[in-house]
């Protein structure tokens, strides 16, 4: 009788992840029974494989920011790396919906995956060394990504790179400098500019503000929210900072030893956590 008639026009699904998992090592039949939060480990005691992530399932809609929180080693980066094709998952599916098409990500061939990664996904890595080419300038990093899409006119590329750097508040006079000359916050902003170069509908952010000064963190969080609102970009934000989760994410997954132990609306996760582990995590952050 209820929940019948609600109109939800904003619910354009961008991503549908089901049963995603990643095991490092050969694995054995006991890996999943003997790891996880109840066993206090992600290492299988029988075969020594690492169950980095197991059975992740979630949906992501247009304009939504999904938070993934959890302590070090819980599998947060593993999840986004699998989605960005950095690491092939051991099992599970992910379907990406884009411009009327549905892409079954792990059934695509390498060329198709590369194309999505270059044009429709953006990634900001925890470590800028992974996200930036340190042998070319800030502007060159953005140009590289644009060249891999469809822009090839030098003037246009330079123009777009300038716009992006201005948008992310990197002094455009410095666009011809190498990233190694930049502070951590600036490198992160160049990474964001690079990730945004093709206006991707899906943005993956791995600890995007970790290790930065508070004022720089503020500027970056601000930028991310602006992008979400203006472009409707769907994002997954991985972080162990509950403050960042509270500000950015509408919904949040909590991970421990490779498993999602709880998920919900972010304010609910922070104010009425159900799982003992989350209760402890939230209490200790107050």
């Amino acid at each position, binding site marked *: 009788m*209820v929940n019948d*008639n*609600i109109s*939800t026009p904003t619910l354009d699904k961008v991503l549908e992840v089901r049963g995603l998992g990643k095991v490092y090592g050969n694995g054995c039949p006991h890996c999943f029974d003997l790891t996880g939060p109840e066993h206090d480990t992600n290492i299988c005691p029988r075969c020594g494989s690492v169950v980095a992530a197991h059975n992740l399932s979630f949906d992501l809609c247009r304009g939504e920011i999904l938070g993934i929180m959890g302590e070090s080693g819980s599998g947060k980066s593993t999840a986004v790396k699998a989605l960005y094709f950095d690491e092939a998952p051991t099992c599970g599916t992910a379907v990406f919906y884009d411009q009327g098409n549905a892409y079954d990500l792990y059934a695509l061939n390498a060329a198709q995956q590369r194309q999505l990664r270059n044009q429709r996904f953006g990634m900001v890595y925890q470590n800028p060394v992974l996200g930036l080419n340190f042998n070319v300038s800030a502007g060159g990093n953005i140009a590289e990504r644009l060249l891999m899409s469809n822009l090839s006119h030098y003037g246009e590329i330079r123009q777009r790179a300038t716009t992006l750097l201005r948008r992310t508040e990197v002094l455009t006079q410095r666009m011809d400098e190498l990233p190694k000359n930049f502070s951590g916050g600036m490198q992160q902003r160049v990474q964001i500019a690079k990730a945004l170069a093709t206006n991707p509908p899906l943005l993956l952010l791995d600890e995007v503000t970790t290790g930065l000064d508070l*004022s720089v963190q*503020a*500027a970056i969080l*601000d930028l991310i929210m602006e992008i979400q609102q203006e472009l409707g970009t769907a994002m997954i934000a991985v972080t162990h900072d509950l403050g960042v989760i509270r500000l950015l994410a509408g919904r949040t997954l909590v991970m421990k030893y490779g498993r999602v132990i709880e998920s919900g*609306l972010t304010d609910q996760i922070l104010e009425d956590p159900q799982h003992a582990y989350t209760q402890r995590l939230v209490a200790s952050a107050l």
Partner: protein
Amino acid sequence: MSDQPILEVRDYSKTFVLHEQGKTLPSSSHVNLNVYPGRLTALIGPTGAGKSTVLKGIYLTYLPSSGQLLYRTANGGRVDLATADEHQILALRQRDIGFVTQFLHTLPRQSTEDVVAMPLFQRGVERGTARAQARDILQRLNLPERLWGVSPATFSGGERQRVNLARGLLAKPRLLLLDEPTASLDPKTTDRVVELIAELKQGGTGLLAIFHSPALVERLADAVVELAPPPGTEHFFEGTTP
């Protein structure tokens, strides 16, 4: 004025399970109430009666333990918020259901004006228009103009409360939850709030509110619901937990 409630809370209960302390803490027990379009229902009761819990329960900041939270949508459909999925709740929060609390979580560099205009931004209102409306309501709530362009992060309790109210009221939601919205305001600003709430009621918003003063209940409430502390917690707030 419609006789159909915009919100029916039926037999709502909430018990917190605190794993670390090995405790369960009943907070609301068998609450029933209605909110109607264009009217204000006031929640009253002693400390520990679970007034704020009920509001947070309706907003789904707290997961319900049992009961129904039946919300009537603009097109006449009904949603049980207690079982709706998270995306539905987020969509309703964006367009339909507002909550003014005493807490303010804002982005670090965001100006007060933008904080207040945010719900309008999110609905796609043009930024200039939204900001003009934000300034207008900040003016009405007597927030000094020199504060409009800066972040509310360092504001006093009373200033923050005005920002919260400005944002919640400007959004003109169909259902508005208010948790002691005037607790740290001076009488003149409180009068302005009363005025603005009356305007919202005229516009058809249904309100469910907790006020710190009986005088405000008197001035604003069309119906009053009294909550009692759930059984077994009578002593909890007297510092003599059994």
